[in-house]
C-alpha cells in the first residue's frame, strides 16, 4: 500500500494558550531600543533585500529525529516573482517513497487574499488543492512550516508588530535583535507562534538566528542560518537548520546549484508541471 507523504493540518488554540498570548501581547507595543533602527524598519530592510526575480536550486532536506535516525530528501526548487506575487514550486526527486511529490504555492501580496496551494501526490496521481490557512502546519515531515517555505528568508510584515530589543554578535557578525509578536490571536493561531526573536545581520539584513515560542508561550524552535555567501551578487543562505525543542527533531536544508540568472519559465509554476515533474 502506497501512502503519499501528504499532510493537511492546522493549529488548535486552547484556552490556556489564549491566556498566555494575552499576557505576552502587550510587550509588542513597547518602544524600540534607542539608537537602533526600529523593528519595523528592520523588517522592511529584510524584505527589501534583493532575492533576484527568479531562482533555481537543489535542496537537500535532512530530517533527524531525537534518536539520530536520519531521513534525506533530494528536491529541486524554483521561485519567481510576478510583481509582488511570489510563486514557489518544489519537486521531490529522491528517495523512491516520495519521488514525484510536488508542492506549488502562489503567495499573494495582499494580506486579505488567501494564498493558493497545491500538492501533487504520486500515489493518487492527482493534484490536490490544499488549504493555505494552515500556514503554521509542518511542511511534509520537516520542522519548517508552510509559511517558512513560502517566505524563505523574508518576513510577513503585516502579521507581526515589530520591536528592536538589542544587538549582539552572532558568528562574528553584528546583528540587531528584533522581537515580533503576532498582531492578534487569529494570526498567532495560524502561524503557530506567540513570539519570535530574530538576530538580523545589520549589513546584509538577513536573520542569522531566530528563536520562536509556541502559542502556549513555550520555546518551540531555534533556526540557524549558516554559510551565507553571495551568489551572482545576491546574499544567499546555503544551510538553514531548525531544531524543534518540543520533539527533539531537527531539519537541515542544504541548498546547492543555486542560479539567479538563468530565469525560470512560467510553466514550471502550473498544476500541469506538478503532474509531469522534472
Amino acid at each position, binding site marked *: 500500500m502506497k501512502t503519499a507523504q501528504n499532510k493537511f493540518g492546522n493549529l488548535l488554540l486552547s484556552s490556556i494558550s489564549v491566556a498566555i498570548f494575552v499576557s505576552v501581547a502587550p510587550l509588542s507595543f513597547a518602544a524600540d531600543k534607542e539608537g537602533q533602527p526600529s523593528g519595523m524598519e528592520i523588517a522592511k530592510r529584510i524584505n527589501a533585500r534583493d532575492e533576484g526575480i527568479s531562482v533555481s536550486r537543489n535542496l537537500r532536506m535532512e530530517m533527524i529525529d531525537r534518536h539520530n535516525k536520519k531521513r534525506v530528501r533530494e528536491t529541486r526548487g524554483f521561485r519567481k516573482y510576478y510583481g509582488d506575487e511570489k510563486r514557489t514550486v518544489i519537486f521531490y526527486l529522491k528517495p523512491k517513497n516520495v519521488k514525484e511529490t510536488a508542492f506549488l504555492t502562489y503567495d499573494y501580496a495582499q494580506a486579505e487574499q488567501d494564498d493558493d496551494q497545491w500538492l501533487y501526490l504520486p500515489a493518487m*496521481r492527482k493534484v490536490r488543492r490544499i488549504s493555505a*490557512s494552515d500556514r503554521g502546519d509542518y511542511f511534509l515531515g520537516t520542522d519548517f512550516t508552510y509559511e517558512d517555505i513560502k517566505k524563505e528568508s523574508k518576513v510577513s510584515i503585516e502579521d507581526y508588530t515589530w520591536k528592536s530589543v538589542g544587538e549582539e554578535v552572532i558568528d562574528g557578525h553584528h546583528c540587531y535583535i528584533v522581537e515580533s509578536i503576532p498582531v492578534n490571536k487569529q494570526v498567532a493561531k495560524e502561524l503557530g507562534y506567540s513570539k519570535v526573536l530574530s538576530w538580523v545581520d545589520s549589513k546584509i539584513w538577513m536573520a542569522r538566528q531566530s528563536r520562536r515560542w509556541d502559542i502556549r508561550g513555550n520555546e518551540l524552535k531555534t533556526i540557524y542560518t549558516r554559510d551565507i555567501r553571495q551568489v551572482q551578487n545576491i546574499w544567499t543562505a546555503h544551510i538553514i537548520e531548525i531544531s524543534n525543542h518540543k520533539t527533539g527533531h531537527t531539519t537541515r536544508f542544504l541548498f546547492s546549484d543555486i542560479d539567479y540568472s538563468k530565469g525560470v519559465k512560467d510553466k514550471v509554476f502550473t498544476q500541469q508541471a506538478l503532474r509531469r515533474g522534472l
Partner: protein
Amino acid sequence: MPAFNTKKTNILCVISTLLGMWSLAANAADTGREGQDLNIEFSALLETEWAYGTAKDSNQKLEFIFEPEINIELQNNSKLTTIGRLRGDIEDRLEPGDPSQDEVSELSRRGLIGNDVDVELREFYLETEIGQSYFTLGKQQIVWGKADGLKVLDVVNPQDFREFILDDFDDSRIPLWSVNAEISIDDSTLQLIWIPDQTYHVLPALDSLYAFTSPAQIPVAPLGVSVDLRSVKKPDRFFSDADYGVRLTSFVDGWDVTLNYLYHYNDTPVPFRSLTLGSQPTVTVTPEYERTHLIGGTFSNAFGDFVLRGEIGYSTDRYFLTDNANDSDGVIKSDEFAYVLGLDWSGIDETFLSVQLFQSHVLNEQPGLVRDKTDTIVTFLARRDFMNDTVIAEVLWLHNTNNNDGLVRPNVSYQWQENTKVWVSVDVFYGDENGVFGQFDANDRVVLGVEWGF
C-alpha cells in the same frame, strides 16, 4: 478473417509506435554521448503484503511485488519512462488458476508464469514537448477527477477488480496504450486523448475470492431456467472503436475547474439476455460493451481551513439490470447523472478530515430496475500524522445508504527506515449481502505489509 486482420493491424501499429519510441530514445542517447552524459535513473519498489481473512479463518493472499522503474532523460525536453511489475501470490485465491484476460488487449496483457506469478509492462511512455504542446505517448494512466476512492470521471482507464476496491487505484488502474496531448492556451490547458487500446475492466471470475454476487452487478437466472453464457463481444476496430477524450483545465478566480468529455466504451459489459422457451427454458446471456458519451466537469477551491471539491458527470446510453421477466433483453437503457461533493477540513494540527457525498441517478426509471433509481454513498476519512509524518493513522469509511452496507478501513503505517515502510490495516465489510459492499461481508481481513524502495 476481418477480425484477425484488424487485430494484426492493431498489433503492428502499436509495435511501430514502440519501435519509434525506442528509435527516438536511441537517437537521443547517441546525441547525449556526444554532448553531455545521458541521465538514466533506475528505482524500484519491493512490496509484500499478507492478508488474513478473519471471517473464514484463512489466508486471502501472500503477495510479493517487484516494481522496477527506469527513467531516461533524453535531449530536447523528452523523457522515457518504463515501469514493470512482477507479482506473485502463493495463495492464488484472487485469480485462481489461469485467468483468461479476455477483457485485455493482446499488447496490454500480463505474462503468466504458472498459477501464482505474473509479469507485466505496466507503463511505457515517451514525454516530449513541442512548442506549447506536451505529448505523452505510450502505455500510461490518465487520471481525471477530484474525488477520493469514488469514480465519476476517473474512468479513462479501466480497473482490475481482483481485490474489489481494496487495492490502491494506482495499482488497480489498468494503463492503456494512448496518445495524450496537452496544449497550453493562455492560462488554460486543453488535453486531447486518443486510446486505441481496447482493454476493459478485469472482473473477478466466479471462483475467485472477490467475485461479484450482488444482483445489481450480476444478473440472476430464475429458478428452473438454465443459462447459456456466451463469450463477451468485444470491440476490435483500431480506429473506430478507440476512445476519445477532451479536457479543458483552468484556474479562474481561485477556482480549479475542468470541463471533460469522453467518448468511450463503458468498461463493464452489458449482459444482454434472450429467453428461449420450451421443455427446458434457457436464458442466453451475451455480454457486450456499449458506447457512451460522458460529459462533466470538476471544481475545487480553498476557504480558510476548508477545501471544497467536486466532480459531475452525465453519461448517455448506460444499461442497468432489470428483473422484469417480460423485458426483452434484461437491461434498461438510460442516461445517468452522477456527482461527488467533497469537503476537506484541516483545522486541527496534523489532522485531516474529509467527507464526500456520491450520488448516481438513473434518469429513465423502468419497472424492474434492480438498483435504486438514486444510489447514494457517503464517505468519511480521518487522518492524523505523528512523529514528523513517519507515522500516519487513518480510517476510511464508505457507506451505501440504499442498502445500509459499507466498508470500514482503519490503517496505520510507519516509515521505519529511510526506504522501508510497514503497515497494518483492517478491512471490514458490513450490511446487506445484496449490496455492493455487503456482498463481501465474509471477506473481512487483516493486512500486514512491508515496502522497500530504492
